[in-house]
């Protein structure tokens, strides 16, 4: 029952179209089983003197004075009849396509919208490829199921029912003989397709491993060659290749047995009907036309039965897809229950005993963090990888929610301010900036797509990336990302700076965002920034102590805790991590520098 609700949930408001489509399928199968009866009518009624197996309302229309007249009537009527059938089939196709495409369309939009509104916490645990599959492939599986597979089941079951009915109307013993083997074919197919699924998975996995090996050897070809390990790679590949071949053999053998086996069964069914039919015709207890109609009706049902087994065996897949889609929709959107408060942010920020851990983690990533920032100040965050620097800034953007303690922005608890209000006024430049698969130009003005070209170029110049862009063949129109030019880490970072320069945000965060830029460019950029953003409140995460030393306040983090905070001079005077870092990074530099001068 739960499955059924799950199954119909996405059809809401449209389900009548679906029922109509299924009803048409049902009717059409009845029409289909009438076709062989026309032949029977011709042979037994027109040429012989038997009874017509056609329903009376049709048979009565086909009474002619002469044989020729009767034949013409049958021909004209059957052509009209076929035309009506085709018309109905076409109409049903349209209804079905409209319905299934509409359902798929709405479902994709719904999933995507929801996906986007989920928290970063959810996304940090989800794999992108998997989510894509849920929005496209799983929807497609569901669509195929409702639009084709289920329809197919209805089609075959009705066809079977009508065919048996027509047979029974003509001759019950013949009907029993003609449908004796059909159930066996069905069960054999069902069992086979259930089994072959697993073998299929094995083959796919084996192929997957082989493909991975190829890709790795190709992308790592320099390493392979550098270590002279070509032969090793070839052997590794050959092992996978052999494994894949052997698994394929297994699958092929199974398939061969199945197709051959069921062919024999179906052949046997034909023979049984034919032999018994001939006996009955020679006895004179079965009309020739009826015999031929039996063979034709048998032909209608016996081949599709194999497919029925397959569809039923495959329907498990749809159930899995449904579950996967539901799973996304059940997640709570991060914008649900948000307070409708939007405020002007100046940069008055207070952290009071803030702690944070991921919901499924036991270890706190941040513990007992307290500090105060005044508008216009520059704060440097320094510490080892994993010490919690980036997490701290993400709490301020409410990409993650705090566990304990309090963050006050302009004196208000951060949870009482709408997420979008915070995010639109705090600009963050990531260490690994995200570039979209579009032009350099559009990437820079991503936040404001109406900005004029001159401003974009000006921003790029300040960020020292204008020269690089000019060197590309297509300049600012160069496509970046997956299908375009690959930019170096430094170029990406400078592009992200340019992006932020177009915005006038009161709070700015740089998450180690100049790490891949060489030191000279780093200095040039930061000089330019000092003039552009002199009123902004700035957070800088860095590993370079020379960058940190200029800040109004330096916060040293270690294992999620603040171990030191103060100005450069204060911290240098204290024994601690800051002093040690200073020693490591400037080791002998000063001496050498003096000597050098």
């Amino acid at each position, binding site marked *: 029952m739960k499955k059924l609700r799950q199954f119909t949930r996405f059809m809401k408001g449209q389900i009548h179209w679906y029922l109509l489509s299924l009803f048409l399928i049902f009717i059409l199968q009845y029409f289909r089983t009438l*076709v062989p009866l026309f032949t029977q009518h011709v042979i037994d009624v027109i040429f012989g003197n038997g009874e017509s197996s056609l329903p009376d309302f049709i048979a009565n229309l086909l009474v002619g004075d002469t044989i020729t007249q009767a034949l013409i009537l049958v021909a004209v009527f059957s052509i009209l009849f076929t035309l009506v059938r085709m018309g109905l089939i076409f109409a049903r196709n349209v209804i079905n396509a409209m319905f299934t495409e509409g359902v798929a369309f709405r479902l*994709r939009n719904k999933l*995507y919208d929801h996906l986007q509104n989920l928290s970063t916490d959810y996304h940090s645990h989800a794999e*992108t490829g998997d989510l894509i599959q849920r929005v496209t492939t799983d929807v497609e599986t569901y669509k195929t199921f409702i639009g084709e597979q289920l329809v197919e089941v209805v089609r075959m079951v009705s066809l079977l029912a009508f065919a048996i009915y027509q047979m029974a109307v003509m001759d019950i013993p013949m009907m029993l003989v003609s449908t004796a083997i059909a159930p066996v074919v069905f069960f054999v197919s069902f069992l086979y397709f259930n089994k072959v699924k697993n073998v299929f998975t094995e083959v796919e996995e084996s192929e997957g491993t082989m493909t991975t090996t190829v890709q790795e050897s190709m992308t790592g070809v320099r390493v392979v060659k550098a*270590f002279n390990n070509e032969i090793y790679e070839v052997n590794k590949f050959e092992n996978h*290749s052999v494994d894949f071949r052997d698994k394929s053999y297994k699958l092929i053998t199974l398939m061969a047995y199945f197709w051959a086996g069921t062919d024999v069964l179906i*052949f046997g069914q034909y023979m049984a009907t034919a032999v018994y039919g001939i006996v009955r015709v020679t006895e004179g207890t079965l009309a020739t036309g009826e015999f031929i109609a039996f063979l034709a009706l048998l032909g209608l049902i016996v081949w599709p039965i194999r497919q029925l087994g397959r569809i039923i065996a495959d329907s498990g897949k749809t159930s899995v897809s449904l579950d996967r889609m539901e799973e996304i929709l059940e997640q709570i959107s991060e914008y649900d229950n948000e307070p409708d408060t939007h405020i002007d942010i100046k940069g008055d920020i207070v952290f009071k005993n803030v702690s944070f851990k991921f919901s499924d983690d036991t270890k706190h990533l941040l513990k007992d963090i307290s500090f105060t920032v005044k508008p216009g100040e520059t704060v440097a965050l320094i510490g080892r*990888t994993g010490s919690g620097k980036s997490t701290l800034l993400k709490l301020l953007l409410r990409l993650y929610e705090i566990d304990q303690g309090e963050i006050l922005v302009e004196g208000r608890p951060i949870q009482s301010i709408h997420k979008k209000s915070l995010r639109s006024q705090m600009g963050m430049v990531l260490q690994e900036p995200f570039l979209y698969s579009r032009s350099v130009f559009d990437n820079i003005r991503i936040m404001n797509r109406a900005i004029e070209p001159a401003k974009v170029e000006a921003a790029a110049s300040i960020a020292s990336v204008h020269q690089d862009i000019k060197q590309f063949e297509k300049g600012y129109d160069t496509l970046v990302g997956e299908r375009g030019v690959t930019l170096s880490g430094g170029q990406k970072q400078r592009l992200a700076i340019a992006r932020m320069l177009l915005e006038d945000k009161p709070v700015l965060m740089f998450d180690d965002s100049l790490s891949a830029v060489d*030191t000279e460019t780093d200095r040039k950029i930061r000089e330019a920034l000092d003039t552009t953003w002199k009123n902004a409140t700035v957070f800088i995460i860095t590993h370079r102590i020379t960058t940190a030393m200029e800040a109004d306040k330096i916060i040293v983090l270690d294992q999620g805790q603040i171990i030191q905070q103060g100005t450069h001079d204060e911290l240098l005077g204290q024994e601690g991590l800051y002093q040690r870092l200073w020693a490591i990074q400037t080791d002998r530099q000063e001496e050498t520098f003096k000597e050098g001068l």
Partner: protein
Amino acid sequence: MLKTKEQLKPELQKQLDLDKASKGGRWGRGPGMPVKKPKKIGPTVRRLLGYLGVYKIALVFIILTSIVATLLNTTIPSLFSLAIDDFIIPGDYSGLYQIALVIMGFALFNGLVRFFSRYILIRISQGAIKKIREDAFDKLLKVPVSYFDEKGAGDLASRITNDVELINNTLAQTLTQFINTIIIIIGVSVLMVRLNWALALIVFGFLPLMFLVIIVISKKTRKYFMAQQIHVAGLNQIIEEDVSGLEAVKLYNQEQAFQDEFNDENIKLKKASFAAQIYSGLLWPFIHFFNNLVYLVVVAVGALLYINYPGFITIGGISGVSQYARQFVQPISEIGQLFNALMQGLAGAERIFELMDAESEYKDDQTIVLDKFEGALTFKDVSFGYKPNELILNNVSFTSKAGALIAIVGPTGGGKTTLIKLLNHFYDLSDGAILIDDVDIAKVQKDALRKRIGIVLQDTHLFKGSIFENIHYGDLTASSEAVIEAAQKAGAHEFITKLPDRYDTQILEGGQNFSQGERQLISIARTLLNNPDLLILDEATSNIDTRTEAKIQTSLKGLMEGRTSIVIAHRLQTIEKADQILVIDQGALIEQGTHQSLLAKKGFYYDLYQSQFTI
């Protein structure tokens, strides 16, 4: 995800792969596959047959047997007519049983032949395919690195999987299906004419109209299926961009923009899918309609002829032609599709063979083998560009002593990385020569040269497999003790032993489950195990945290000891220690010397150093 050569629509291929993975459609053909025509059919076919080896005869035998079986099968309706005319109507039932036995025998024979030929064919083709796949892979490891730059590693990888699969389909299925279909069409035509030429003519009369309809519908269907795939790929791309950069999307308030974009693409997809469904749904009703129409017309005209010209046609003849008319329609409707599939398979084979014909970099390999380098290094007027007329390095010359530490400094994009890439002869120089111990490396056997040179790059490539296997990769003959020793020397042992599975911990594809620092430590251990005489190093920029950084520095110090080392340097410590500093800018060596001498010169290096310190 694989990338393919398909420059026009890479996303289309991506979607096809996705579909393949999700639906397991290996044994089927997608209706929307773009049709690529092969250029040289003859040679490609001959070469393909070559791969079948002794099984070539089996293939010919199978094709001949299935032709015979198909022909016998097509005679069944004729036998039925015979049965009706000669036995049923006169009432000769003993003859009827005989002919029933013959029909049964033919059908059984056809079934058996179909079963065995299909089974054997698939086995033969799997064997041939395995050989092709392995040959292609083997060749790929012999072509120069520049080939990979040119064609793209992902693209080449996809040839070995996708194109080979196309060949497989062709050999195992399409070929015999195609031949059988032609046989059926010809056989049925002949038998129909023999039964009754007048009725046969009626059947043929319908053909042009049928072809026309099939072609029009197929074209439309293909068009919309392709559009459908392109739009699905479009959606995938939007989701991928959005989800993998979701933080950025949220930070930049781009949610609505993405939603609009998705919605637009989604509408396009809906329209294309709708059209694809409608058009593909048209084909069957049409064929079915023709089928019935032809059948009815044959029966009706036959009956009229029978009544009006009794000697001209028999009841059996009517039955026979009407049955043949039904057998006729399906092969006719499929032949075009089969032909396209055949061409696709050949095009795939052609691409694979083209790859196999690429020139091996070992073709003109030299013979000098040096067991050990002292490590004295000379660059003599070295110029180089990936493309012949775009030089990246221009006239670089320097000499250094064995065992020296050489630091390369300069702005990003100046040619530092290119310079070190030339050392292990992955590329041929445009001009000049590189000498190690006064021997031109162009004259040294490539494998021998590379064996003695170790490289540690920033962007470390690790393989899927255990940590142990990855370090062992440096020297596959080394003992497990040596592997652990190398890890210890590299300073990687400590973090490895803290992992639950220690050295057996699996590294995922691309090494994504390890931090960059850890990956680099593993890579250093790998190089240490290889024990090269010359070391090439691309020092990490500051992406790594200070503590791991310190560890890597110590580890590298161990690695550099007693060997000539060339380092792209970002660390002051390294630069200051260097015996020789090369300053590279815009492809030229603009300054060289020691730290002190370069500072004293107050040139480019001095500025660089100044700016670095004063920040």
